[in-house]
């Protein structure tokens, strides 16, 4: 059973063949790499995350797994731990917020992306934010990917560890998502978004430039949501078919699970 090649099976991932549907299929398919738009130095990421001082040793919450004496359990030898787990790192977080205005990813999309691409992670979706918790060194590794690739639009996505409010408000005069703590500003000289505070709102000694915001055309091209000015209502025919079937199935399954048959 376990040896059967997986290649025969082609995952559905998402219904529809419009542009938005294709975007969703790409982001949630771990076999398809995400385009890199910018480079952010590792030390800069450590600074914005604000969990440890730059180049400080990782703090551990327990000894390395190999040194621990645990009660016998075969399962613990089957599942392969992540590098951070093996070292006994603390569990730390990154919290991302995504604007409503032509976002390149949204909280529900992040959850599916995290589920398909990351191991050993813990996430909770909220209306305008998404928290991701991992072992510290694993978190820093994925944070690099989250900030450098096509899913991060410096103008419309942001790290907000606290005071997350603002994803549904109007954009500011520079086209940035509202942030009550003013963690990031638009540098008109360089054309880049610059983090002047870390995700918890503490002022940084050295500001961290994180790249220029996407142009309006790029925003539309990379948008993950259906909307009147990207993909209109009728593009969602397949999606509606699947969602209405799922809803009906759920109601019937809850009423009497034996009632579901092949004709449905």
């Amino acid at each position, binding site marked *: *059973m376990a040896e059967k090649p997986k290649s025969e099976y082609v*995952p559905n991932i998402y*219904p529809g063949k419009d542009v938005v549907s294709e975007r969703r299929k790409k982001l949630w398919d771990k076999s398809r790499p995400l385009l890199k738009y910018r480079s952010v130095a590792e030390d800069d990421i450590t600074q914005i995350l604000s969990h440890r001082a730059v180049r400080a040793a990782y703090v551990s919450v327990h000894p390395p797994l190999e040194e621990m004496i645990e009660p016998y*359990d075969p399962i613990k030898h089957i599942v392969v731990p992540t590098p951070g787990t093996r070292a006994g790192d603390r569990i730390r977080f990154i919290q991302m917020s995504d604007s409503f205005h032509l976002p390149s990813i949204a909280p529900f999309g992040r959850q599916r992306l995290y589920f398909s691409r990351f191991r050993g992670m813990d996430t*909770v979706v909220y209306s305008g934010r998404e928290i991701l918790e991992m072992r510290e060194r694993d978190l820093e590794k994925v944070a690099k990917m989250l900030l450098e690739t096509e899913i991060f639009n410096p103008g419309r996505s942001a790290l907000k560890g606290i005071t997350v409010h603002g994803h549904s408000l109007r954009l500011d005069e520079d086209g940035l998502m509202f942030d009550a703590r003013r963690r990031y500003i638009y540098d008109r000289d360089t054309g880049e978004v610059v983090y002047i505070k870390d995700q918890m709102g503490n002022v940084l000694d050295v500001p961290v430039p994180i790249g220029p915001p996407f142009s309006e055309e790029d925003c539309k091209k990379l948008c993950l949501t259906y909307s009147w000015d990207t993909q209109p209502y009728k593009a969602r025919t397949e999606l509606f*078919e699947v969602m209405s079937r799922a809803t009906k199935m759920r109601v019937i399954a809850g009423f009497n699970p034996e009632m*579901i048959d092949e004709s449905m």
Partner: protein
Amino acid sequence: MKMKYEDKVSLYNDTSQCMTENVPIEALSPFCNPYMKDVLDLFKRTAFINLSKLQSCLKEGKGGWETVLGQDECKMPWYGRDLPIVEHAEEIADRIRDKVGKFGDGEDSVTVMADTIVVKIPKEVMEVSASRDPVYTWTMVALCQAIAEVFNINPNTDLDGCNMLKAVVFGRYPQSITFSPGAPVSGFLKPSNVVDGLGAEYSGITVNHIVAMVNKRTMDGLALASILEGAAQWEMGNAVGWYERYNLLGYAYEGFNANNLVLDLVKENREGTITDVVYSTIIRAVEDGVIKVKNKLASGYKIYTTNDFPLWNAYELAGTTAAAIVNCGAMRSGQAAATVLGYINDGFALETGGLADPDGGRMEGAGIGFAFYTHSIYGGAGPGAYTFDHVILRGSGFIQPPIVAGMCLDSGTQLFSPEMTSSAFFKLRDMFPLLQDPLKKVAEAAEQIKGEIKKG
């Protein structure tokens, strides 16, 4: 016993060895499986008296507290009584046996284990009672009488001592209907007046207690949680009639590693992600003929269909459990199990073209609520400190086993760790050999009775 359903499963242990073959699913019902009956009986009828705690509280004049950690807001040292209660453990136990044990059929109802007296209320008493509260009421009253007799405490000799003894054992009851947390007298189950919901008694056991009782062995944790939660579902009426096969199959695959499905999925994805487990579950279900492709939409998107939703639901539950094990195992942290339960569901629904997700969406609802309450996004406690009669968790009967599995895999990241909240329950495992190797014992009991379940 008549066999109503055609379904048969083989049960495997955590090293993938087959323990019993072709067992009718009825053999995994608490009404048939003798091991399950014994476990439930133990949980229902047993009370514990912590004599050292009783002695120290009585000495300090401490009683009626309502805080979990402090336990010190009501102290009356001027009424304290320094009695050598632990030294007289045997004598106190004998007197309790005289008062309680005589109603039984000769089974020894009272045993002393170190500083703890274990009282098993006789079956006859439980049969006459409308509730299972004698576990608390009989034990507490008999204990107070025994101590009064041994140390000669009565209104003539020591009026305040009588009151202090009552306050230590009963707390503020009956002015307050709840007993103090961590009181000297406790049971496996909560007192019935504080259980949140009808029939939810067996699901009212703290997650960490179960983890401690199986000594953090993942598949045993799944099995013990499934025995308890499965019995609770029957008691709630959630497994009657239309839902019987649905529940029996669900717990067989989720909790008792039926057909080695959970372990196969874990092994296949030992370095995989949660979504990989969803794909593997669908591949396995298609191979086993549980679901099949009905048609394709214009984009190439496949719509799956099934004639046997209860079995597909059981496969989904096995997939969810395997995903929780794979994810929590990679992170070696219990906090990530709630996330899997909350969000894997739309993975299944979207991947199959809308087939109902695990437990018809109830698992998603309860899982998201649980994830909110166990994370800093909303505050709350760690998953290990929850009981499943809780208002946000009782929505689905299938979420308890994967949460227990997640906590079994935790390597020490939780503030509410099993060692902190449930240290006494690690000892219970040694006290009651019945609690050791629950998965193996469920399988042995099923093997023993499978011949008695015949087609009728």
